[in-house]
C-alpha cells in the first residue's frame, strides 16, 4: 500500500462529500487499477456503515417525563393562566367558591343599606326610590335594598338588588328590569364582570 497516503486522503474527502470533480475522477481511475486501495476503500465504507447503523441507541421510555419533572417550577402566573383557559367552567366555579368563603357573605350582610345614585333628583319614600315624572335618567339605574317606582323615564336598564319594581303606569323604562334579590344571584352578577375581566386578559 505505498500509493495510499494521497489516495486515502481522497477517499476521506469523497466520503465527506468534500471532493473536487477532478480528484474524484483521479480516485475512481486509481481504484480501478489498484487492488490495495480498493480494499482500503471498501473497509472505510463498511466502517461508516457499521458506525452509522444504530438500531438500539434510544434512551429509556420515561426520558422526557424525567426531564420535565426536574425543571424548576414554572412561574405561577403562567400555570394559572393556562389552567384557566383550559377549564373556563371550573375557573368560574372556583372563583365563585373562593368568593363565597372569603367573606362575600359578610360583605353582603354589611351591605344592607339603601343605595341609589345621588344627584339625579330621585325621591326616597320609606323603602322606595321614586323616579319623579319630569326626571330622565340617561344611564342604567342601580338601586340596592329598596323598591323602585319609575314615574319619569330611565333610558338604560333598571337593576334592582334586593328590591322590587313597583310599576307606575306613566313611567318609561327603555332597557330591561333586572331583579337581583338573592345573595347567589347577586354574586353571579358580580362574578360575571370578574370572569369577563379574567378572560379578556391575554
Amino acid at each position, binding site marked *: 500500500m505505498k500509493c*495510499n*497516503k494521497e489516495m*486515502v*486522503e481522497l477517499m*476521506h474527502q469523497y*466520503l*465527506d462529500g*468534500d471532493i473536487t470533480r477532478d480528484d474524484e475522477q483521479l480516485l475512481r481511475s486509481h481504484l480501478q487499477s489498484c487492488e490495495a486501495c480498493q480494499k*482500503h476503500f471498501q*473497509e*472505510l465504507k*463498511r*466502517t*461508516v456503515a*457499521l*458506525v*452509522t*447503523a*444504530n*438500531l*438500539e*441507541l*434510544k*434512551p*429509556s421510555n420515561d*426520558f*422526557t417525563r*424525567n*426531564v*420535565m419533572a*426536574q*425543571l*424548576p417550577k*414554572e*412561574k405561577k*402566573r*403562567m400555570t394559572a393562566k*393556562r389552567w384557566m383557559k383550559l377549564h373556563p367552567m371550573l375557573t368560574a366555579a372556583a372563583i365563585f367558591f373562593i368568593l363565597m368563603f372569603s367573606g362575600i357573605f359578610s360583605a353582603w350582610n354589611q351591605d344592607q343599606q339603601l343605595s341609589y345614585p345621588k344627584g339625579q333628583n330621585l325621591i326616597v319614600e320609606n323603602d322606595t326610590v321614586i323616579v319623579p315624572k319630569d326626571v330622565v335618567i340617561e344611564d342604567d339605574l342601580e338601586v340596592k335594598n329598596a323598591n323602585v317606582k319609575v314615574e319619569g323615564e330611565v333610558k338604560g336598564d333598571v337593576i334592582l338588588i334586593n328590591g322590587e319594581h313597583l310599576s307606575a303606569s306613566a313611567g318609561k323604562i327603555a332597557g330591561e328590569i333586572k331583579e337581583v334579590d338573592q345573595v347567589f344571584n347577586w354574586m353571579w352578577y358580580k362574578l360575571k364582570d370578574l370572569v369577563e375581566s379574567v378572560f379578556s386578559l391575554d
Partner: protein
Amino acid sequence: MIEEKLKHNIKLVKKGDQTAFEDIVAYYQNKVFAICYRMIGDKQEAEDIAQEAFIRAYLNIQSFDENRKFSTWLYRIATNLTIDRIRKKKPDYYLDAEIKGTEGLNLYAQLPAEQALPEEEVESLEMQSYIQNEIMQLPAKYRSIIALRFLDELSLKEISEILEIPVGTVKTRIHRGREALRKRLRHV
C-alpha cells in the same frame, strides 16, 4: 419537528411556557442521548448527561439566539457536558491525545481487539456494543466528532460550530477517526 413549530415552541418556552418544552425534548431525545452515549460509552451515564443537557437548555433558553440553529446550540451543550464528565472521571485519559497521521495508527493496528467476535452471525445488539467498545478506544475528541458525524450526519460546518473548532480540524479528526475505526473494525 418542522422548523416553524420548533421556532414557535422556543418562543413559548422563552415566555415561560414549560409544556412547550416537552415537545422539544421528545423530538431531540434520541439524538442527544446517542451523541452522549457514543462519547461516554455507558447508557446510564449517557441518559443522565442527556437529561442534564435538556435542563441546561431550558434554564439558558433566554441566551439562545433564535436566528441560529437550535440543534447546534443543544448539541454543543450536550457535548460540553459529556466532555466535562469524561474529564472528571479520568483526568488524564486520552482526552487530548492525538491520533498521529496514518503512520501513528500503527498504535491501534497493533492492539488486538479486546473481545473476539463470535463466529456465528452477531446479533445487532452485540454488534452495537462491540462497535461502541471499539469507539471507546479512541481519544474523546475523536469520539465526539464520530458521534456528531455518524449519528446525525451533520455537515462539517455544523460540527465545527458545535465543537467550536475550525472546519479544517474537524476534517482532520474525521479522517483520522474513521481511519482508526477502519483498522479496529475491518475484521467485523
